């Protein structure tokens, strides 16, 4: 793999790490498989792309993030106020967002931001060569740090309890429904921010860029968790960033090994499946080692039996 490819992979990983961080909130903390993710990622990208073409890259990042956060709120309202199944609520929002995203892009299915001012073009001007890496790193670390601080507050603690035991939360004068709303708002805001950053980075926005985002984000998160053996929340936040970067490096590695572009999706699916089943595989290996150690020593047993028969001793 060339240095440029590695650098690009790390930059991408840092940008995508915001998706994994969002999933820490919705999947790990609240225990929801939130499919809004696929739509809110593109929404953030679309809103940001349109603003950037109008010459407002910073406003684009802010509005894209907010728009995505609000789409999370829609899913949350369906789930809590309408008692819709979490998976279904996410799918409903995701389907609706497809049209919203097309509208946000002015009716086109792709937009180009070539030669326009973006956060990354400014960063590259300031620090040639490493600007994008720095910008991505700042975004990822700022998001991880902000989340970490939030979960240290009393409000953050209550949010964790909502995911753990809603009944208990209700018994202490807290409305768990509001917890779901806040959590999905935060999660999808982060995910949309990732989409917004990505269009500015790759200078291109298309309607299908959110497809598979839940699984990719989850795979990155789990890959990070498995490798860093993180179980605490701050550890999970770091694992999300580490896992994202690593996932992108592995993908870049596959490209460098001349995996045909057409087979890249298959490679990524295998990687995802491997990452997600890693904890189970590890558990199984530990078990089989334990089982082997617990086996009676067949050979030794046979010898002692022979000895007993031959010498007429009584076994004790």
């Amino acid at each position, binding site marked *: 793999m060339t240095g440029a490819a590695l650098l690009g992979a790390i930059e991408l990983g840092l940008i995508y790490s915001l998706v994994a961080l969002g999933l820490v909130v919705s999947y790990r903390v609240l225990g929801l498989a939130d499919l809004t993710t696929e739509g809110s990622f593109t929404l953030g990208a679309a809103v940001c792309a349109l603003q950037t073409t109008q010459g407002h890259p910073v406003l684009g990042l802010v509005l894209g993030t907010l728009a995505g956060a609000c789409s999370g709120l829609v899913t949350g309202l369906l789930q809590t106020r309408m008692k819709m199944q979490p998976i279904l609520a996410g799918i409903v929002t995701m389907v609706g967002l497809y049209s919203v995203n097309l509208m946000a892009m002015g009716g086109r299915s792709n937009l180009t931001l070539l030669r326009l001012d973006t956060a990354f073009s400014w960063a590259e001007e300031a620090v040639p060569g490493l600007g994008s890496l720095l910008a991505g790193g700042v975004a990822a670390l700022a998001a991880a740090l902000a989340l970490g601080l939030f979960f240290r507050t009393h409000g953050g*603690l*209550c949010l*964790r309890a909502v995911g*753990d*035991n809603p009944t208990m939360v209700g*018994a202490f*004068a807290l409305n768990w429904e509001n917890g779901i709303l806040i959590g999905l708002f935060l999660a999808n805001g982060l995910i949309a921010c990732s989409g917004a950053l990505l269009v500015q980075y790759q200078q291109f926005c298309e309607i299908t860029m959110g497809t598979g985002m839940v699984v990719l984000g989850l795979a990155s998160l789990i890959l990070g968790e498995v490798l860093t053996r993180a179980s605490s929340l701050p550890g999970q936040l770091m694992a999300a960033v580490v896992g994202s970067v690593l996932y992108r490096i592995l993908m870049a590695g596959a490209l460098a090994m001349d995996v045909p572009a057409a087979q890249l999706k298959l490679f990524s699916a295998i990687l995802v499946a491997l990452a997600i089943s890693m904890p189970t595989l590890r558990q199984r290996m530990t078990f089989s080692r334990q089982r082997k150690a617990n086996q009676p020593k067949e050979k030794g047993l046979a010898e002692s039996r022979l000895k007993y028969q031959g010498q007429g001793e009584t076994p004790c």
Partner: protein
Amino acid sequence: MLKLQGLYKSFHPGTVNERTALAGVDLTLNPGDFVTVIGSNGAGKSTLLGAIAGSFYVDRGRILLDGEDITYQPAYRRSGQIGRLFQDPSQGTAPNLTIEENLAIAAGRGAKRRWISSITPSQRDFFREELSLFEMGLENRLTCKVGQLSGGQRQALALLMATIRPPKLLLLDEHTAALDPAAAQKVLEMTQLVVQRGHLTALMVTHNIQAAFSVGNRTIVMGEGKILKDLTQSQRQSVSPGSLLAYYV
């Protein structure tokens, strides 16, 4: 303190499964009353506690707490003044949070919740002190996840959580029924301790008639959604627990 006026509640109305769980319950609790509730399965004991806690809204009647009409207040808002313990110890605590994190959430009830650091050192000292009261060694395990505790320990913690900010009313729904005899005894003793200490008003559902008569200062017997008997402390002493079996139909 608590005033229940003509509470009616039926489940699945208009279907063949219609069941009247509360058929006109009137009850007044005075401040400091510790009332035990007995009755057969399906007598309406748990429904009564659920109605007071707001798990569902009653069909008819009014619920007044300290003069305030809470009949249509949502459950999470009532819980600012009402503490509740369930039979299942896992319902009252969050398993993946530590003991001190659980207590911090409980301590936030009815208080202005702070958006700064969730647990302060002075709070930690306070938790340790309160836990040592139970003599279970929990005070040394503040950063232990609650899921690792035994049922008895979890219920003890749930009891402390429900009362760490004294509620106006404490509802105990067979909270010792799922515990082994020793743990049940321990939790019952602690219940008496915290109720006495905080001068709490409490309603305790139990199937243990012995406990129902020895705990608290008043016992009500329920059957078919009604209060059949309301025994004061002196009346309790003149009734033999055995004669109450007649109400278990």
